[in-house]
C-alpha cells in the first residue's frame, strides 16, 4: 500500500498527466462531470458523484466512427481509428466500477465493440472509496463494497492521506511511474477509514432494499403486473435516468452531412424516448408504459437473464436526478419483497 498526502494530489495528477490524458471529476458551471485534467484543476473528494458516470469516458455520449467524403460522384470512406494512446481515469466510485463491468459484458462479448475495447485496453482506472455516501445510495444491495471499489488501482482517503493499492498489472505499472511521490505504508490506516465508512453505510435508508422479486427468469411473473400502469404515469419520458446511469448502453448511429463531408457518429440513446429504435413501421414500443417497463425490466430481469448480473449498481443518480422522483427504487419496491413496504 502506498501513501500520498491529499494536499499533494496535484503533484500526483501532474506526474500522470505528463504523458497521457487524465480524466477525473471536475467542476464546470456548477456541475461535476468527468473532464480532462489540466494543471491546476482541483479534485474535490467530498463530491460523491459526477452527474454523468464514468461511462462517458469509455463510451462517450457522442463519438465519430467514420467519415465519408464525396467529390462529385466519387465517394470515399475514412474510418476513424479507435483510441491507441494510454490514459488514466481517477476518482471512480465503486458503483461506477461495477457499472463498467456491466458495460464490459455487453461491449466486450462477441461482436466486440472495438471503440470501447480500445479504451478499456488503454485506460487505467483509479477508484476512490466513498467517504460520505448519501441517502440515495443502495449499492450494497447489489453486493458492492464502496470501501473496496476495485479497478486497476483503488484508493481510500484516510484523514490527511490518500492510500493507494494496485490490483492489476496496469495499476502496478502506473504506481511505479509515480513512485517518487509515494511512500509505503501498512493497511491499518486504510482499514480504520473503511470501518468508519461502513458504519455510515449501515444507517443508509435504502441499504436493505430487497431484490428477491427480481432477477433471472422473472419475466413472466413481472411483465404484466398491474403496478406498471400506475408507476409509469408520472414519468415524463425524458432521458435523464438513462444518461446519468452508469450501465445504460444503448446508442443511436446517425449521419451528419456538411457539404461534401458526412460524419457518421454514435450517440447515447434512451429507451424512454418515443423515437427509440424507430423502424420503418414506426416504433416498437409505442406507449409510455411499454418504454417505462422496458428500462426496469432490462436492468433487473433481462440483463440478469443474459449476463447473470443486475445492471443496476445502486449509485442513486437516477433517484437524485429524476425530475419527478420516479425511480428504480420505487419500482423495485412496488413489485414486493420484504422490508419494501
Amino acid at each position: 500500500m502506498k501513501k500520498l498526502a491529499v494536499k499533494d494530489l496535484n503533484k500526483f495528477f501532474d506526474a500522470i498527466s505528463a504523458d497521457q490524458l487524465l480524466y477525473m471529476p471536475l467542476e464546470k458551471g456548477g456541475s461535476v462531470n468527468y473532464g480532462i485534467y489540466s494543471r491546476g484543476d482541483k479534485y474535490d473528494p467530498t463530491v460523491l458523484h459526477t452527474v454523468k458516470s464514468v461511462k462517458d469516458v469509455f463510451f462517450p455520449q457522442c463519438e465519430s466512427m467514420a467519415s465519408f467524403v464525396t467529390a462529385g460522384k466519387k465517394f470515399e470512406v475514412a474510418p476513424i481509428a479507435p483510441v491507441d494512446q494510454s490514459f488514466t481515469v481517477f476518482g471512480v466510485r465503486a458503483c461506477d466500477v461495477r457499472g463498467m463491468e456491466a458495460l464490459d459484458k455487453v461491449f466486450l462479448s462477441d461482436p466486440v465493440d472495438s471503440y470501447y475495447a480500445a479504451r478499456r485496453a488503454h485506460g487505467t482506472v483509479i477508484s476512490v472509496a466513498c467517504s460520505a455516501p448519501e441517502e440515495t445510495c443502495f449499492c450494497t444491495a447489489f453486493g458492492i463494497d464502496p470501501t473496496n471499489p476495485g479497478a486497476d488501482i483503488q484508493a481510500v482517503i484516510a484523514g490527511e492521506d490518500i492510500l493507494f493499492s494496485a490490483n492489476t498489472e496496469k495499476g502496478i505499472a502506473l504506481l511505479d511511474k509515480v513512485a517518487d511521490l509515494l511512500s509505503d505504508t501498512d493497511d491499518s490506516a486504510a482499514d480504520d477509514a473503511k470501518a468508519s465508512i461502513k458504519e455510515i453505510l449501515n444507517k443508509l435508508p435504502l441499504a436493505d432494499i430487497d431484490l428477491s422479486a427480481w432477477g433471472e427468469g422473472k419475466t413472466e411473473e413481472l411483465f404484466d403486473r398491474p403496478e406498471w400502469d400506475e408507476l409509469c404515469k408520472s414519468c415524463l419520458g425524458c432521458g435523464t435516468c438513462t444518461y446519468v446511469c452508469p450501465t445504460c448502453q444503448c446508442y443511436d448511429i446517425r449521419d451528419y452531412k456538411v457539404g461534401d463531408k458526412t460524419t457518421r457518429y454514435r450517440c447515447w440513446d434512451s429507451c424512454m424516448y418515443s423515437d427509440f429504435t424507430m423502424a420503418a413501421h414506426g416504433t416498437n414500443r409505442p406507449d409510455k408504459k411499454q418504454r417505462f417497463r422496458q428500462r426496469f425490466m432490462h436492468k433487473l430481469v433481462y440483463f440478469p437473464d443474459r449476463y447473470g448480473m443486475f445492471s443496476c449498481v445502486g449509485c442513486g443518480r437516477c433517484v437524485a436526478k429524476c425530475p419527478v422522483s420516479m425511480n428504480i427504487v420505487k419500482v423495485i419496491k412496488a413489485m414486493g419483497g420484504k422490508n419494501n413496504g
Partner: protein
Amino acid sequence: MQRIGVFVCWCGSNIAATVDVERVAQVMKNEPGVVFSTDYQYMCSEAGQAIIRNAIAEHKLTGIVVCSCSPRMHEATFRKTAQRAGLNPYMVEIANIREQCSWIHKDKEEGTEKAIVLARAALAKVMLNAPLIAGQSSVTKRALVIGGGIAGIQSALDIADAGYEVDIVEKEPTIGGKMSKLDKTFPTLDCSACILTPKMVDAAQNEKITLYTYSEVEEVKGFVGNFNVKIRRKARYVKEDVCTGCGACMQKCPSKKGLNEFNLGLNKRTAIYIPFAQAIPNVAVIDATQCIKIKNNKCGLCDTVCAAKAIDYNQQDEFIEREYGAIVMATGFNPIKLDKFNEYSYAECPDVITSLELERIMNAAGPTGGKLVKMSNGEHPHDITFIQCVGSRDISGRGKCYCSKICCMYTAKHAMLIRDKYPDVNVHVFYIDVRTPGKNFDEFYRRAVEEYSVDYIKGQVGKVYPEGDHLVVQGVDMLANEQIIHKTDMVVLATAIEPDPTARKIASMLTASIDTNDFITEAHPKLRPVESPTAGIFLSGVCQGPKDIPETVAQAGAAAVKVLGLLSKDKLVTNPCVSQSNELLCNGCSMCQNVCPYGAIGYEDKLINDHGIRETRRVAVVNEALCQGCGACTVTCPSGAMDLKGFTNKQIMAEVDAICK
C-alpha cells in the same frame, strides 16, 4: 432516386460574358443525382426548350435545373416545357445566374464560382421536389372598378361592353373625376366636358354597370376570382332613387357657406347641392357639416320644397357586400398640398393659383363664369407668369421625386388659350426642361412659342411676393445668366400630382404592393404594366404612375382586357404551392389559424391512425383554394406539422446547406 438534368443558359453574352457556362455545366455533370448537363445559347428559345424536352425523354429525367435568368422571368416558360415533355411542371427549379450573378459581377472566376453554388442550391432543392398538381377555383363573373374618373369609367365601359357585369365605386357624389374639372384638353384643345360627359352618361345607362357613388371600399376578402368586397354607401341624406335632380332644394337652402369642392373651393355652395350640372347621378347630396337641420334640427327647407320627397335627414351609412372575380384600381390623383412651398406665397396671395384652379377659372361653369380675372379683385390681368415643376423632381423632401409628366403640356395649353382669348395678356413660363414626348406634343408646345409668342424662360423662380396690387416674381434666366425681378398680375403653379390618399389604404386591403410614392406597383414595369403582382387586381390610370388622358384611357382599356381574360374563364388554376398540415404531427393548438391572413386554416376532429394507435383529435385542415402559400403558418407551428408545398422546410434547408457548403 432522382435523375436530374441541368441546363445552363448563356443568355447570349448576358450570362456567358461573366460566367463560364461550360464549366458550370461540367461541374454540375459530376454532382450526385445529375445524369445530364449541358449549356446552350438561349434556353428559353424554341431550340433551347427542345434540348430540355429531348433530354427529359432520353435520360428519363425526374427533375430539371435551369441556370438562367430570374425565375420571375422564365420559370413559367420552363415549367411548360417540362410539362410538354411529360414531366410535372413543379419538378423544375431555376438558378438565377443572370440578375443575381452575371449582371452584377465583373470577374469571370467569381461569377462562375457563384453560378456553381447557385446551381448546386437549386439542385439540392429539386432533389427534394415533389410533383404538385394545381387545383381549380371558380370565377365570379363580375368586376369591381374602384374610382369613377375617366380611367374607371373607361375600364367599366369596356368590361360591360363585353357582356360582364361591373360595379364602379366612387367616393365623391358624382363620377367624372379630375377630367370633369378640366376646361380644355391638350393637344387638340377640345372641350373636356364635351368628350367626357357622353361617357359618364353611357356608364350610367349601361345596364351591366352599377354605380356606387359617394361610396367607399371598406373591406376586401378572398382572392382572384373570388373577392368579397364590403362597400360603405355614405349617407347622402337624399334618397338616390327618388331625387329627380330638379335643383329646387339648392335654390332654397339658406346655408351657403360650404366651399364648392368642384371648383376647388374658389367659390361657395349650398349645404344641399348637386356637384355640377352634368353630375352623374344627377342627385343632390347634403353636406352634413353645413346643414342646419342636421346640425341644429332647425330649417328643413329643402324637405319642404322637394316635390319628390327625396330628403331623409336620418339616413345612415349602409354596407353592402358583393362578390367579384376581378378588381380594377382607378383611384386617380390629386395635386400636392403646397404648404411646404412658402416661397410662392400661395397661401397668402389669391392671385397665386394652381393650374387646376386656373382650369376652373377658365371654365364657363367655373366660379368666374369662364372670365379670366384676378381672384383678389376681379380685375383683368395683363401679365401672367407660369411656374413649372412646383414640387416635381424634388428630392429635398418637400415635393415628389418624380416628373409629374402632364404639367409641361397643360402649361403650354394654358399659355396658348390665354394668349388666344386675351391677346393683350403677356404670358411668361419659367421652366427647367420642357418635356413633350407624345404624338403632336412638341408641335403643340412650339406653337405656343412661335404662334402665340409665349415667353419661355429657362430657369426657376426663387420667390413670389406681393407688392401693391401686383405680384413680383424673382427668378433666373439661366441662358442669360441674369436674375429677373418681374412684376406680374397672376402666378400659376404647375403643381406636382400625387396618388389619391385612398390608394394606400385600398392597396393594403387588396394586398397590392405600393411604391414609396404610393403608386401601385405593376407586376412587371414593361411586360405587365396594367396588372398588379396580386392576381386579379388590375391598374388603370394615374394610380400606377403619372399619365395624361389618352394614356389613361389606353391603360383603362388594357386593364379591361385583362379583366375580361380573367372573367371569361370558368375555372382558375390555383397555385399548388400551398400549406399542408401533417395530421400525425398536428397538436391542434390553433396558432397557425391566428396568423393566416386568408382564413384558410380550419380545425376538424378527425380519427387519426398513427402507426396503429387510433385516436380522434383536433387537427388543422388547410383549404387549398383559400391558401395563397405565404408560409406564415409553417413558422408558427412548433412541431413542423405545417409545411409549405414547393418551399418545404427540408427544401429550404437543403438550399441553405448547399450555399454554406
